[in-house]
C-alpha cells in the first residue's frame, strides 16, 4: 500500500483524513512538527500531507525545510493543506508539490491529487 504521512495538529481533521484514506493507504498521522519530521525520516512515506499552522517549536514550514534537507525524504512529494493563504507562494518555493486551502477543497479533491501523484510515480 502506498504510504501516506499526514502531519496535522487538528484532531477533527485528522479523523476526517483517517476515515477517508485509512482503507486505501497506509496512513500515519503526526500531530506536531517535531514528530512529523521524525516519522518522515523513519516511515519514509510515498506522499506527505502537511499542515502549516501548528503549535510547538516546529511549524509546517520548518517541517518542510527539514524534509527537503534530508536526502532520504527530499524526494517525497509534499501536499500542503493549510488555512493560511499567504503561505501558498512560500511553500511552493520551498519545494512543496501543491498547496491547497482547507476551505477551498474537500477530501475528494485531495484524493484526486493523491491519485495523480501516485500515477506519476508508478
Amino acid at each position, binding site marked *: 500500500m502506498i504510504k501516506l504521512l499526514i502531519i496535522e495538529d487538528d484532531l477533527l481533521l485528522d479523523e*476526517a483524513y483517517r476515515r477517508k484514506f485509512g482503507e486505501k493507504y497506509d496512513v500515519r498521522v503526526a500531530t506536531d512538527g517535531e514528530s512529523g519530521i521524525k516519522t518522515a525520516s523513519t516511515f519514509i512515506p510515498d506522499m506527505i500531507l502537511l499542515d502549516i499552522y501548528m503549535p510547538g517549536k516546529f511549524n509546517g514550514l520548518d517541517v518542510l525545510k527539514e524534509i527537503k534537507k534530508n536526502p532520504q525524504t527530499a524526494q517525497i512529494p509534499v501536499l500542503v493543506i493549510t488555512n493560511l493563504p499567504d503561505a501558498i*507562494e512560500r511553500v511552493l518555493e520551498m519545494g512543496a508539490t501543491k498547496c491547497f486551502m*482547507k476551505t477551498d477543497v474537500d477530501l475528494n479533491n485531495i484524493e484526486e491529487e493523491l491519485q495523480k501523484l501516485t500515477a506519476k510515480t508508478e
Partner: protein
Amino acid sequence: MNNKERWRLFLIVLTSLFLLGGSIYMWIFINRSVEDRKHRDLNLTLDKVEDTIRERLMTATGILYDLRGFLGVSELSPEKWRKYFEVSSLEENHPGSYSIAYVEMVRKENISVFEELMRNSGDSKYLNYMVFPKTGEDISYPIKYLHTTDPDVSVLLGFDFQYSDRTTAAFNQATLTGEPTLSELTHLDLIIPSSKKTGYEIVLPVYDRAASQIGFLGAWINSEGLMGTGVDMTGLRYSLFDGDEKIFTSGRLGGEPLTHINREVELLGHNFRVVLESDKMFKLSSFEENLPTIFLATIIVILLLWVLSVYAILSSRRRAVVLADLATRDLRKFKQAVDGVSDHVIITDPEGVIMYANKAAEEITGYGLVEMIGKKPSLWGGQMPKEFYENFWKTIKYDKRPFWGEIRNRRKSGELYEAEMRVSPILDDKENLLFFVGIERDLSKFRAIEKMKTEFISLASHQLRTPLSGVKWFVEMMLSGDAGKLTDLQTKYLSKIKESNEREIQLVNALLNVSRIESGRIIILSKKTNLKNLVESVVADIKVNIGGERNIEYDIGENLPEVEVDPDLIKHVYNNLLSNAVMYSNPGGKIEIKVYPKDGRILTEIKDNGIGIPKAEQPRVFEKFFRASNATKKVTEGTGLGLYLTKTIVESSGGKIWFTSAVGRGTTFKFWLPLKAVKGKMVEPEGGKII
C-alpha cells in the same frame, strides 16, 4: 546691573562731566582770548601808556636819588642847588616835565630865623622869601629850594606842605619807609585858586651826617606830564582815573569812541585806572569773530555725539544681551524640542564623529551621551552587509545626498533591532560638508505590532477556518456516500448544510482579506501579467458555476500589453465584478467584458443588464458591509465586502474604479490600471516577505 557695569557707568558719567567742564572752561577761555585779540592793538597801546607812566615816575624817582646823592650831606646852598640842574641833563632829557623841590623841616620857633637866612642868601630869588601859610604847627615843611619851568609852580617857593594833608601823608609814609613815596593826587587850586592843574609828588627823605632826617626831596609831576608825548594818540583817547576821579584825559579821537578798554595799573603803591578809547571798531575776521560761537557749537555737537555714542553702545550691548538671551532661549527651545522627540537624532562631523545625540538616541541605542560623543555610529552598527555601508557612505559623503533605508542595529545590551534611518548631509553655500544629521526610528515596536497583527490574522485564519473545513470535509464525505447510502431528504439536508458552510467560508475569507488590507498586510507582488489569460480563466471558472444561465461575451484585445500587477489580487477584482454581474442579473441576461488600452493605461468594462443600483444608494456601494436594498432582496447572502476589497485592490495598484447604473436596466463597472502597479504598501522589489 552688576558691579562691573556700575563701575563702567560711573566712569562714563565721570568722563562726560569732565568733557562738559573742560568744554565750558575752554569756551570761556576762547571767548576772552577773542576779546583780547580784538583789542590787541588797543592793549598794546595801553601797555605803552602804562610803560610811559611808569617810566615817568621811575625817572622822577631816579632824579631824586641822583640829586640826593649829589647834594650829599654837606651844607646845602642855593649855588649847589643851582649847580645840579646846570650839570644834569634833566632839562635836556625831560624839558618842563618835572618840578623838583627841597623841603626842609623847620621848627615853629625857628621859622623867622629861617626866613631871615633865606632872604640874606644873596640870591635875588630869595629876596622876599617867606614861609606860607603860617599853620601854627610845631613843624613846618617849607620848600627851601625849587626848580621848575612852570610859572604856576614857581609861586610855591616857601610853601609849607604842612598845609597839604595829602603831601603830609606822603611825607610821613616816606619817613617811615625811607622809600620814594607817591602822594595822593594833589590839586594846585589848593594854593592857586584859579589853577586847574593836578599832579603827584614823589617824596624822598633826606638825612644829615648823623643820619637823622632833615628834610625831603620831592618831584612834582603834573597829571598831563604823566603821559608825556611818547605815544601816538591818533584816533585814541586815554583817561586816567584815580579812584572815581578822572585826573586827566588826552588824545585825539577821530570820531565817536566805538571801542574802549580799561586796565587797573598799580604804580608806586598807588592804584590808577586807565581807560583807552578808540574811534575804530576792531573787527577780526568773521571766523575769529565767531570763534566762540563756532567753538560752542562744536562742543555741543561733540558732547551730543559723545552722549549718543555712549547711549548707542549701551543700548546695543543691551540689545546684544537680549538677542543672545533670545537666541539662547530659542536654541534651548530647539534643543529641548529635539531632546523631546521620540526618534533618535544625532549630529556628526563630516567624518562621522558624533557631536550631539538626543535623549531618544540614548534610549534606543542604550548608550549614554558621554559614551557616544567623540565616537562614530558604528558603535551600534555593523550588523548590515559591507555593501550597505559602502553605498551609505557614498551617498552621503560623495554624492552629498540624503540616504534613507532600513537598517539593523545592535543596542548596547546586545539586542538587535530594526530601524528606519535617514541621514542628511548639511552643506554650506559652497557645497562643503558641514555635518551630518542622522535620524532613526526604532521599528522594533512597530515590527512587534506588525508581528502581533500577522500572528493574530494567522491565528484567526486558522481558528476560524479549521472547523469550517472540518464540516466541509465530513459533509462532502457523506454526500459522496462514504458513510453509507443517503435518502433524498438526507441528501437535501446535507446540501443545505454544505451551502451554509460555504457561505460561512466565504464570509471568513472576505473578513480576513479585509483584515489584511486594513492592517497593511496586503502586499502587492507585481508581476508581468497577461490580463487576457487572467480574465479568461476567471470567466471559465464562473461559467462552470453558472452553466448557461448567462450570456457572457468578452472583447479583449489580442495585443493587450502585459501589465505589472499582482495577478492574485487582480483576479480577485475580476472575480468579484463578474460574480456580481451574474448574481444581480436575471437568467438570460447578458454580460459584456471589455479590456483595452487607453491613454497609457488598461481599461476594463464589465457591463450587465441586471437589476441596477438605486441612485440614492449609489454613493455607498463601495462601503464595507453595504448591500443595496434590491441586491439583498435578490441574493440574500452576500458579505457586503466584495466591492470594498475590489476598490482597495484597484486603488492600491495605482488605478481607479467607478460605475454607472440605472435601476432595472443594469450596471456597468469600469476601472483602469496603470501599466505598472504604482502605489502599494511595502513594495518589495525582490519578491515578497510573507508571514
